[in-house]
Protein backbone atom coordinates (compact mmCIF):
# COMPACT_ATOMS: atom_id res chain seq x y z
CA UNK A 1 0.00 0.00 0.00
CA UNK A 2 2.76 2.37 0.98
CA UNK A 3 4.59 1.48 -2.21
CA UNK A 4 1.49 2.27 -4.27
CA UNK A 5 1.19 5.69 -2.71
CA UNK A 6 4.84 6.36 -3.37
CA UNK A 7 4.42 5.48 -7.05
CA UNK A 8 1.30 7.58 -7.38
CA UNK A 9 2.99 10.51 -5.68
CA UNK A 10 5.94 10.51 -8.07
CA UNK A 11 5.38 13.47 -10.40
CA UNK A 12 6.22 11.37 -13.48
CA UNK A 13 3.64 8.75 -12.79
CA UNK A 14 0.22 10.25 -12.20
CA UNK A 15 -2.31 10.69 -14.94
CA UNK A 16 -3.09 14.14 -13.61
CA UNK A 17 0.49 15.36 -13.75
CA UNK A 18 0.94 13.94 -17.25
CA UNK A 19 -2.22 15.68 -18.43
CA UNK A 20 -1.10 18.92 -16.81
CA UNK A 21 2.30 18.69 -18.44
CA UNK A 22 0.72 17.88 -21.83
CA UNK A 23 -1.44 20.99 -21.63
CA UNK A 24 1.51 23.18 -20.67
CA UNK A 25 3.59 21.71 -23.53
CA UNK A 26 0.79 22.32 -26.06
CA UNK A 27 0.59 25.94 -25.00
CA UNK A 28 4.35 26.34 -25.16
CA UNK A 29 4.42 24.78 -28.64
CA UNK A 30 1.75 27.18 -29.87
CA UNK A 31 3.61 30.17 -28.42
CA UNK A 32 6.95 29.09 -29.88
CA UNK A 33 5.44 28.50 -33.32
CA UNK A 34 3.70 31.87 -33.24
CA UNK A 35 6.82 33.72 -32.12
CA UNK A 36 8.68 32.78 -35.32
CA UNK A 37 5.76 33.62 -37.62
CA UNK A 38 7.31 36.93 -38.67
CA UNK A 39 6.12 37.13 -42.29
CA UNK A 40 3.60 35.41 -44.55
CA UNK A 41 4.44 33.47 -47.71
CA UNK A 42 1.86 35.34 -49.82
CA UNK A 43 3.35 38.63 -48.61
CA UNK A 44 6.82 37.65 -49.86
CA UNK A 45 5.34 36.23 -53.08
CA UNK A 46 3.65 39.54 -53.93
CA UNK A 47 7.06 41.02 -54.58
CA UNK A 48 7.95 38.33 -57.14
CA UNK A 49 7.58 38.67 -60.89
CA UNK A 50 4.36 37.29 -62.29
CA UNK A 51 4.72 34.37 -64.63
CA UNK A 52 2.45 33.02 -67.35
CA UNK A 53 1.30 29.54 -66.44
CA UNK A 54 0.88 27.13 -69.33
CA UNK A 55 -2.39 25.33 -69.82
CA UNK A 56 -2.11 21.59 -69.42
CA UNK A 57 -3.87 19.61 -72.15
CA UNK A 58 -5.28 16.12 -72.07
CA UNK A 59 -2.81 13.91 -73.95
CA UNK A 60 -3.81 10.30 -73.25
CA UNK A 61 -6.71 8.39 -71.78
CA UNK A 62 -6.24 4.91 -70.29
CA UNK A 63 -9.47 2.91 -70.44
CA UNK A 64 -9.95 -0.66 -69.29
CA UNK A 65 -11.00 -0.74 -65.65
CA UNK A 66 -14.61 -1.75 -65.07
CA UNK A 67 -15.02 0.48 -62.04
CA UNK A 68 -13.50 3.24 -59.87
CA UNK A 69 -9.75 3.67 -60.18
CA UNK A 70 -8.52 4.10 -56.61
CA UNK A 71 -4.76 4.46 -57.03
CA UNK A 72 -2.03 4.69 -59.66
CA UNK A 73 1.75 4.90 -59.69
CA UNK A 74 4.32 5.79 -62.37
CA UNK A 75 7.06 3.33 -63.19
CA UNK A 76 10.63 4.65 -62.76
CA UNK A 77 10.97 4.12 -66.57
CA UNK A 78 8.72 7.25 -66.96
CA UNK A 79 6.55 5.33 -69.40
CA UNK A 80 4.49 2.70 -67.58
CA UNK A 81 1.75 3.20 -64.99
CA UNK A 82 0.25 0.69 -62.57
CA UNK A 83 -3.33 1.24 -61.46
CA UNK A 84 -5.69 -0.43 -59.01
CA UNK A 85 -9.46 -0.36 -58.93
CA UNK A 86 -12.66 -1.16 -57.11
CA UNK A 87 -13.16 -3.85 -59.77
CA UNK A 88 -10.51 -5.98 -58.05
CA UNK A 89 -7.96 -5.60 -60.84
CA UNK A 90 -4.43 -4.24 -60.97
CA UNK A 91 -3.42 -3.09 -64.45
CA UNK A 92 -0.08 -2.13 -65.97
CA UNK A 93 -0.23 0.40 -68.82
CA UNK A 94 2.08 1.77 -71.45
CA UNK A 95 1.22 5.46 -71.07
CA UNK A 96 2.94 6.45 -74.35
CA UNK A 97 0.69 4.24 -76.47
CA UNK A 98 -2.27 4.24 -74.03
CA UNK A 99 -2.42 0.45 -74.14
CA UNK A 100 -2.93 -2.04 -71.34
CA UNK A 101 -0.07 -4.51 -71.02
CA UNK A 102 -1.10 -6.62 -68.06
CA UNK A 103 -4.11 -7.38 -65.87
CA UNK A 104 -3.73 -8.98 -62.46
CA UNK A 105 -6.83 -10.25 -60.64
CA UNK A 106 -6.75 -9.58 -56.90
CA UNK A 107 -8.51 -11.70 -54.27
CA UNK A 108 -10.90 -8.91 -53.28
CA UNK A 109 -12.48 -5.76 -54.73
CA UNK A 110 -11.48 -2.24 -53.60
CA UNK A 111 -7.76 -2.44 -54.34
CA UNK A 112 -7.02 0.88 -52.63
CA UNK A 113 -3.28 1.13 -53.14
CA UNK A 114 -0.62 0.13 -55.66
CA UNK A 115 3.05 1.01 -56.08
CA UNK A 116 5.98 0.39 -58.41
CA UNK A 117 9.27 -0.78 -56.89
CA UNK A 118 12.35 1.40 -57.61
CA UNK A 119 13.74 -1.27 -60.00
CA UNK A 120 10.50 -1.28 -62.02
CA UNK A 121 10.45 -5.09 -61.75
CA UNK A 122 7.84 -5.41 -59.02
CA UNK A 123 4.46 -3.92 -58.22
CA UNK A 124 2.71 -4.06 -54.86
CA UNK A 125 -1.04 -3.79 -54.33
CA UNK A 126 -3.73 -4.33 -51.72
CA UNK A 127 -6.76 -2.82 -50.05
CA UNK A 128 -9.85 -4.33 -48.46
CA UNK A 129 -8.04 -7.67 -48.21
CA UNK A 130 -5.93 -5.98 -45.44
CA UNK A 131 -2.81 -7.20 -47.25
CA UNK A 132 0.02 -6.10 -49.47
CA UNK A 133 0.84 -8.52 -52.24
CA UNK A 134 3.94 -8.13 -54.40
CA UNK A 135 3.96 -9.24 -58.05
CA UNK A 136 7.16 -9.67 -60.06
CA UNK A 137 6.70 -8.25 -63.59
CA UNK A 138 9.83 -9.46 -65.34
CA UNK A 139 10.88 -13.06 -65.69
CA UNK A 140 9.40 -15.12 -68.43
CA UNK A 141 6.05 -16.38 -69.52
CA UNK A 142 4.57 -17.15 -66.11
CA UNK A 143 1.61 -15.13 -65.01
CA UNK A 144 2.68 -12.54 -62.40
CA UNK A 145 -0.28 -13.73 -60.29
CA UNK A 146 1.29 -17.19 -60.12
CA UNK A 147 4.48 -15.76 -58.64
CA UNK A 148 2.88 -13.38 -56.17
CA UNK A 149 4.06 -13.02 -52.60
CA UNK A 150 1.92 -11.78 -49.72
CA UNK A 151 4.17 -9.54 -47.67
CA UNK A 152 2.08 -7.75 -45.09
CA UNK A 153 -1.16 -8.20 -43.21
CA UNK A 154 -2.90 -5.45 -41.24
CA UNK A 155 -5.93 -5.83 -38.97
CA UNK A 156 -7.91 -3.45 -41.22
CA UNK A 157 -7.78 -2.25 -44.83
CA UNK A 158 -4.46 -1.24 -46.37
CA UNK A 159 -4.88 2.32 -47.67
CA UNK A 160 -1.44 3.24 -49.00
CA UNK A 161 1.95 1.67 -49.70
CA UNK A 162 5.35 2.57 -51.09
CA UNK A 163 8.81 1.07 -51.53
CA UNK A 164 11.32 3.13 -49.48
CA UNK A 165 14.06 3.45 -52.18
CA UNK A 166 14.58 -0.32 -52.20
CA UNK A 167 12.79 -3.37 -53.64
CA UNK A 168 13.50 -5.23 -50.41
CA UNK A 169 11.18 -3.30 -48.09
CA UNK A 170 7.67 -1.94 -48.23
CA UNK A 171 5.99 0.72 -46.11
CA UNK A 172 2.22 0.52 -45.57
CA UNK A 173 -0.52 2.59 -43.97
CA UNK A 174 -3.75 1.07 -42.75
CA UNK A 175 -7.27 1.60 -41.47
CA UNK A 176 -6.03 0.02 -38.24
CA UNK A 177 -4.31 3.36 -37.51
CA UNK A 178 -0.75 2.12 -37.92
CA UNK A 179 2.01 2.42 -40.48
CA UNK A 180 4.39 -0.50 -40.84
CA UNK A 181 7.69 -1.33 -42.52
CA UNK A 182 7.98 -4.89 -43.88
CA UNK A 183 10.69 -7.09 -45.33
CA UNK A 184 9.51 -8.14 -48.80
CA UNK A 185 11.43 -11.42 -48.91
CA UNK A 186 10.45 -12.80 -45.50
CA UNK A 187 7.23 -10.87 -44.86
CA UNK A 188 8.63 -9.95 -41.46
CA UNK A 189 7.42 -6.78 -39.71
CA UNK A 190 10.52 -4.60 -39.30
CA UNK A 191 8.98 -1.60 -37.56
CA UNK A 192 5.52 -0.52 -36.51
CA UNK A 193 4.56 3.17 -36.29
CA UNK A 194 1.79 3.89 -33.81
CA UNK A 195 0.55 7.37 -32.93
CA UNK A 196 -2.42 8.05 -35.23
CA UNK A 197 -5.74 7.95 -33.39
CA UNK A 198 -7.64 6.83 -36.51
CA UNK A 199 -7.21 5.36 -40.02
CA UNK A 200 -3.99 6.22 -41.87
CA UNK A 201 -4.83 7.45 -45.38
CA UNK A 202 -1.56 8.59 -46.94
CA UNK A 203 2.20 8.19 -46.86
CA UNK A 204 5.16 9.90 -48.47
CA UNK A 205 8.87 9.26 -48.26
CA UNK A 206 11.29 12.14 -47.67
CA UNK A 207 13.45 12.91 -50.75
CA UNK A 208 16.33 10.43 -50.60
CA UNK A 209 19.11 12.65 -49.23
CA UNK A 210 16.97 13.55 -46.22
CA UNK A 211 17.60 10.27 -44.45
CA UNK A 212 15.11 7.79 -43.11
CA UNK A 213 12.02 9.86 -42.50
CA UNK A 214 8.52 9.68 -43.90
CA UNK A 215 5.23 11.46 -43.36
CA UNK A 216 1.70 10.12 -42.86
CA UNK A 217 -1.77 11.65 -42.79
CA UNK A 218 -4.96 10.22 -41.36
CA UNK A 219 -8.60 10.45 -40.35
CA UNK A 220 -7.53 11.86 -36.96
CA UNK A 221 -6.77 15.06 -39.00
CA UNK A 222 -3.10 14.73 -38.05
CA UNK A 223 0.00 14.84 -40.19
CA UNK A 224 2.91 13.00 -38.54
CA UNK A 225 6.59 12.95 -39.47
CA UNK A 226 8.32 9.69 -38.50
CA UNK A 227 11.84 8.50 -37.87
CA UNK A 228 11.92 5.17 -39.70
CA UNK A 229 14.66 3.68 -37.54
CA UNK A 230 13.26 4.45 -34.10
CA UNK A 231 9.57 4.17 -35.03
CA UNK A 232 8.86 7.45 -33.23
CA UNK A 233 6.84 10.39 -34.50
CA UNK A 234 9.18 13.37 -34.46
CA UNK A 235 6.83 16.12 -35.59
CA UNK A 236 3.07 16.65 -35.75
CA UNK A 237 0.81 19.13 -37.57
CA UNK A 238 -2.84 19.20 -36.65
CA UNK A 239 -4.46 22.27 -38.20
CA UNK A 240 -6.69 20.44 -40.73
CA UNK A 241 -10.41 20.41 -39.93
CA UNK A 242 -11.11 16.99 -41.40
CA UNK A 243 -9.50 13.74 -42.65
CA UNK A 244 -6.07 14.19 -44.24
CA UNK A 245 -6.23 12.21 -47.51
CA UNK A 246 -2.87 12.98 -49.06
CA UNK A 247 0.62 14.17 -48.11
CA UNK A 248 3.58 15.00 -50.30
CA UNK A 249 7.09 16.30 -49.55
CA UNK A 250 8.22 19.43 -51.38
CA UNK A 251 11.12 18.48 -53.74
CA UNK A 252 13.49 20.38 -51.41
CA UNK A 253 12.46 18.08 -48.56
CA UNK A 254 11.95 21.02 -46.17
CA UNK A 255 8.19 21.28 -46.36
CA UNK A 256 5.10 19.28 -47.24
CA UNK A 257 1.71 19.82 -48.81
CA UNK A 258 -1.43 18.05 -47.60
CA UNK A 259 -4.93 17.60 -48.97
CA UNK A 260 -7.98 17.09 -46.78
CA UNK A 261 -11.73 16.51 -46.72
CA UNK A 262 -11.94 20.10 -45.38
CA UNK A 263 -11.45 21.06 -49.11
CA UNK A 264 -8.19 22.78 -48.31
CA UNK A 265 -4.55 22.05 -49.15
CA UNK A 266 -1.98 23.26 -46.65
CA UNK A 267 1.76 23.86 -46.77
CA UNK A 268 3.63 22.88 -43.61
CA UNK A 269 7.28 23.78 -43.16
CA UNK A 270 9.37 21.30 -41.18
CA UNK A 271 11.97 23.81 -40.01
CA UNK A 272 9.46 26.49 -39.00
CA UNK A 273 7.38 23.66 -37.50
CA UNK A 274 4.12 25.23 -38.63
CA UNK A 275 1.60 25.81 -41.40
CA UNK A 276 2.89 28.50 -43.76
CA UNK A 277 0.22 28.59 -46.51
CA UNK A 278 -3.28 27.43 -47.45
CA UNK A 279 -4.66 26.70 -50.90
CA UNK A 280 -8.42 27.04 -50.91
CA UNK A 281 -11.28 29.04 -52.44
CA UNK A 282 -14.78 29.70 -51.29
CA UNK A 283 -16.12 28.05 -54.43
CA UNK A 284 -14.28 24.80 -53.65
CA UNK A 285 -16.42 22.88 -51.20
CA UNK A 286 -15.47 19.26 -51.95
CA UNK A 287 -12.65 17.31 -50.41
CA UNK A 288 -9.08 17.03 -51.71
CA UNK A 289 -8.18 13.37 -52.40
CA UNK A 290 -4.64 13.73 -53.68
CA UNK A 291 -1.84 16.29 -53.90
CA UNK A 292 1.40 16.51 -55.89
CA UNK A 293 4.24 18.98 -56.65
CA UNK A 294 5.72 20.08 -59.94
CA UNK A 295 9.50 19.57 -60.34
CA UNK A 296 10.47 23.01 -59.01
CA UNK A 297 7.86 23.05 -56.27
CA UNK A 298 6.19 26.14 -57.73
CA UNK A 299 2.97 24.29 -58.61
CA UNK A 300 0.80 22.24 -56.28
CA UNK A 301 -1.55 19.87 -58.11
CA UNK A 302 -4.69 18.70 -56.35
CA UNK A 303 -7.44 16.21 -57.24
CA UNK A 304 -10.93 16.86 -55.87
CA UNK A 305 -14.22 15.07 -55.27
CA UNK A 306 -15.92 17.69 -57.51
CA UNK A 307 -14.50 15.81 -60.57
CA UNK A 308 -11.72 18.35 -61.22
CA UNK A 309 -8.01 18.59 -60.67
CA UNK A 310 -6.20 21.89 -60.57
CA UNK A 311 -2.83 23.57 -60.16
CA UNK A 312 -2.10 26.15 -57.47
CA UNK A 313 0.71 28.67 -57.51
CA UNK A 314 2.39 27.50 -54.30
CA UNK A 315 3.84 30.95 -53.61
CA UNK A 316 0.91 33.25 -54.29
CA UNK A 317 -1.76 30.79 -53.27
CA UNK A 318 -3.80 31.41 -56.44
CA UNK A 319 -5.39 28.70 -58.56
CA UNK A 320 -3.74 28.93 -61.99
CA UNK A 321 -5.22 26.06 -63.97
CA UNK A 322 -8.23 23.70 -63.76
CA UNK A 323 -8.21 20.27 -65.42
CA UNK A 324 -11.76 19.37 -66.46
CA UNK A 325 -12.85 16.16 -68.13
CA UNK A 326 -13.19 13.49 -65.48
CA UNK A 327 -16.77 12.36 -64.93
CA UNK A 328 -16.37 11.38 -61.29
CA UNK A 329 -14.17 12.20 -58.34
CA UNK A 330 -10.41 12.41 -58.91
CA UNK A 331 -8.66 9.99 -56.57
CA UNK A 332 -5.03 10.44 -57.49
CA UNK A 333 -2.77 13.02 -59.15
CA UNK A 334 0.86 12.13 -59.77
CA UNK A 335 3.75 13.66 -61.67
CA UNK A 336 5.74 11.50 -64.09
CA UNK A 337 9.24 10.82 -62.65
CA UNK A 338 10.84 13.23 -65.16
CA UNK A 339 8.21 15.90 -64.50
CA UNK A 340 6.94 16.00 -68.11
CA UNK A 341 3.35 14.93 -67.44
CA UNK A 342 0.68 14.66 -64.78
CA UNK A 343 -1.53 11.58 -64.41
CA UNK A 344 -4.99 11.71 -62.85
CA UNK A 345 -7.01 8.66 -61.80
CA UNK A 346 -10.73 8.80 -61.20
CA UNK A 347 -13.88 7.02 -60.09
CA UNK A 348 -14.98 7.39 -63.74
CA UNK A 349 -12.79 4.29 -64.38
CA UNK A 350 -10.18 6.18 -66.44
CA UNK A 351 -6.65 7.42 -65.95
CA UNK A 352 -5.73 10.54 -67.92
CA UNK A 353 -2.35 12.02 -68.80
CA UNK A 354 -1.95 15.79 -69.03
CA UNK A 355 1.02 17.77 -70.35
Amino acid at each position, binding site marked *: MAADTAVAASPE*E*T*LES*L*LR*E*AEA*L*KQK*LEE*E*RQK*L*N*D*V*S*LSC*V*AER*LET*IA*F*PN*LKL*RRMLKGHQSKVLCSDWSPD*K*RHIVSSSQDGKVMVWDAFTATKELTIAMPSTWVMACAYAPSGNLVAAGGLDNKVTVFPLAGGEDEPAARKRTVATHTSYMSCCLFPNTDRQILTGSGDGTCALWDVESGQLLQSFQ*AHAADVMALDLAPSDMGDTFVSGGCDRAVLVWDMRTG*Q*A*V*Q*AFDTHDSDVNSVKY*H*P*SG*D*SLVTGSDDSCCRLF*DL*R*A*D*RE*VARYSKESIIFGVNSVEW*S*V*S*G*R*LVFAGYSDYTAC*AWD*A*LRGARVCVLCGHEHRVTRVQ*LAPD*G*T*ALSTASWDATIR*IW*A
Partner: protein
Amino acid sequence: MDMMVSTLQQQRAVTEQLRREAAIKRVPVSVVVSDIVKYINEHEQEDCLLVGFSSQKVNPFREKSSCTVL
Protein backbone atom coordinates in the same frame (compact mmCIF):
# COMPACT_ATOMS: atom_id res chain seq x y z
CA MET B 1 -6.93 -1.34 -12.67
CA ASP B 2 -5.69 -2.59 -16.06
CA MET B 3 -7.81 0.12 -17.62
CA MET B 4 -6.09 2.74 -15.45
CA VAL B 5 -2.65 1.42 -16.26
CA SER B 6 -3.35 1.52 -19.99
CA THR B 7 -4.79 5.06 -19.77
CA LEU B 8 -1.68 6.09 -17.87
CA GLN B 9 0.55 4.48 -20.49
CA GLN B 10 -1.35 6.17 -23.31
CA GLN B 11 -1.09 9.56 -21.64
CA ARG B 12 2.60 8.99 -20.99
CA ALA B 13 3.12 8.33 -24.70
CA VAL B 14 1.20 11.50 -25.62
CA THR B 15 3.17 13.62 -23.16
CA GLU B 16 6.48 12.15 -24.27
CA GLN B 17 5.55 12.91 -27.88
CA LEU B 18 4.81 16.55 -26.89
CA ARG B 19 8.12 16.79 -25.00
CA ARG B 20 9.95 15.73 -28.17
CA GLU B 21 8.01 18.23 -30.25
CA ALA B 22 8.68 21.01 -27.75
CA ALA B 23 12.41 20.31 -27.99
CA ILE B 24 12.51 20.89 -31.78
CA LYS B 25 14.70 23.80 -32.91
CA ARG B 26 12.63 26.21 -35.00
CA VAL B 27 13.58 28.60 -37.79
CA PRO B 28 11.69 31.88 -38.44
CA VAL B 29 9.11 31.76 -41.22
CA SER B 30 10.91 34.58 -43.11
CA VAL B 31 13.98 32.33 -43.44
CA VAL B 32 12.10 29.22 -44.61
CA VAL B 33 10.01 31.25 -47.06
CA SER B 34 13.10 32.76 -48.68
CA ASP B 35 14.59 29.24 -48.95
CA ILE B 36 11.40 27.97 -50.64
CA VAL B 37 11.56 30.85 -53.14
CA LYS B 38 15.26 30.20 -53.72
CA TYR B 39 14.70 26.48 -54.41
CA ILE B 40 11.94 27.29 -56.91
CA ASN B 41 14.09 29.87 -58.72
CA GLU B 42 16.96 27.39 -59.00
CA HIS B 43 14.76 24.64 -60.47
CA GLU B 44 12.25 26.66 -62.52
CA GLN B 45 13.91 25.91 -65.85
CA GLU B 46 13.68 22.12 -65.32
CA ASP B 47 9.95 22.35 -64.65
CA CYS B 48 8.23 21.48 -67.96
CA LEU B 49 4.74 21.86 -66.54
CA LEU B 50 5.63 25.37 -65.34
CA VAL B 51 7.69 26.88 -68.15
CA GLY B 52 6.52 24.60 -70.99
CA PHE B 53 8.61 22.51 -73.35
CA SER B 54 11.41 24.12 -75.33
CA SER B 55 9.77 22.47 -78.35
CA GLN B 56 6.82 20.10 -78.59
CA LYS B 57 9.26 17.46 -79.88
CA VAL B 58 10.69 17.01 -76.40
CA ASN B 59 7.23 16.46 -74.94
CA PRO B 60 6.93 12.64 -74.76
CA PHE B 61 3.15 12.94 -74.59
CA ARG B 62 2.67 15.28 -77.56
CA GLU B 63 -0.08 14.40 -80.01
CA LYS B 64 1.08 11.79 -82.41
CA SER B 65 1.57 13.14 -85.89
CA SER B 66 -1.28 12.27 -88.20
CA CYS B 67 1.20 11.20 -90.88
CA THR B 68 3.06 7.94 -90.38
CA VAL B 69 5.95 6.54 -92.34
CA LEU B 70 5.08 3.14 -93.71
